């Protein structure tokens, strides 16, 4: 054991390096920090209750969304009835984002923390990108015929037109 001192020294160094992430978090890291999503309409009457209770949604919102997606796209079943009888359109952008319009503070905050990247927003349009109202109108008809396209107004975030899936 001529080199016993060196061996023990390097063992200690190795141990410290190996456990460095733990020390780092204990001293100044963010791992223990609680991350809470901000609910935009928490105090608004009528919009203060989700489609399921909060605890259930915390763990199962992704399953609810998957279920809604399959119900709407594949089964054409578009109405969700809550346990207490409230009815909602099964729609991420029209229903979920109507209350949870603060995607950054509601969705991203936790997803970033958990390091998950759901791909909802590669297709579904997030509220911050809701641009100007787009109005689709029939062109003027030379015959002066009345245009029956006035209901073609699209683009209002809470409008009544084609939600996707």
């Amino acid at each position, binding site marked *: 054991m001529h080199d016993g001192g060196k061996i023990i020294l390097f063992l200690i160094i190795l141990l410290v390096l190996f456990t460095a992430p733990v020390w780092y978090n204990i001293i100044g890291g963010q791992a223990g920090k609680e991350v809470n999503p901000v609910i935009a309409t928490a105090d608004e009457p009528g919009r203060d209750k989700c489609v399921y209770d909060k605890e259930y949604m915390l763990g199962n919102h992704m399953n609810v969304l998957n279920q809604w997606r399959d119900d709407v796209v594949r089964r054409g079943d578009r109405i969700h*009835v809550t346990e207490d009888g409230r009815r909602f359109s099964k729609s991420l*952008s029209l229903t979920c984002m109507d209350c949870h319009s603060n995607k950054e503070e509601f969705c991203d905050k936790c997803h970033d923390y958990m390091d998950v990247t759901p791909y909802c927003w590669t*297709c*579904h*349009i997030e509220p911050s990108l809701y641009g100007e109202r787009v109005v*689709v109108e029939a062109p003027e008809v030379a015959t002066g015929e009345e245009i029956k396209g006035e209901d*073609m107004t699209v683009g*209002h975030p809470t409008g009544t037109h084609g*939600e996707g899936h």
Partner: protein
Amino acid sequence: MTVDRRKFVKVAGLGMIALAAKPAAELFGKDIEHVPAGTAHKLDVDHPKTAKRWAMVIDTRKCRENPDCDACINACHDVHNVPHFEEKDEIKWIWKESYHHAFSGDDNEYMPHDILHSNVLLLCNHCDDPPCVKVCPPKATFQREDGIVMMDWHRCIGCRYCIAACPYGSRSFNWRDPREGLENKNPNFPTREKGVVEKCTFCDSRLARGQLPACVEVCPHHALTFGDIDDPNSEVREILEQNNTIRRKPSLGTKPQVFYIV
């Protein structure tokens, strides 16, 4: 009292019916209309348009009278966030094609000049026997009970078998991020993403809200008629009875549900 076998079977049968009746009655008795509406949300899916078999009739005579009209194309592409790209990147839901290309094999050089040299409105034919549905590995494309050949973009893996299978060129592949080709987006309808196939869905989400397809609703010349071909009293059936109509490539046996009055 003795129970012989015959009596036992009778009683058992009646008992089974009684047992089955209760849940069945509950199922039919549950009327969704009687459930109070959510306070925060206006539900617009309570009165959907439904049919046994959706179909469309396009009166190309009216389109020929107005060769510069693009109302249906613009409306469709605006409502469904269809991007504008050129050439091979082009995404088409409803578009114009020359008569020769639309009805190749059914045309000849001696037919009326104005027909032969006109453009015809094309879209997904929502075939009764859709080849695209058969080849789709993840079943992203499927046929609904009302005949609509539907796409579940969540499931599309971008293999493009459907594009190869469709004899009508009704499907487009997103070679680029479609958002690059969109100026204004309709936030109530998703875009697609790179690597996904897309096509006309007969406006399934508008039908669910009780609206006609956007192209039909916006056409200022009433050239497009949409309805239930299974209903003998429907407008489409009336038009089909009164006019001679053709379909694209009928010999392939796909049974297109888009009919053309030439």
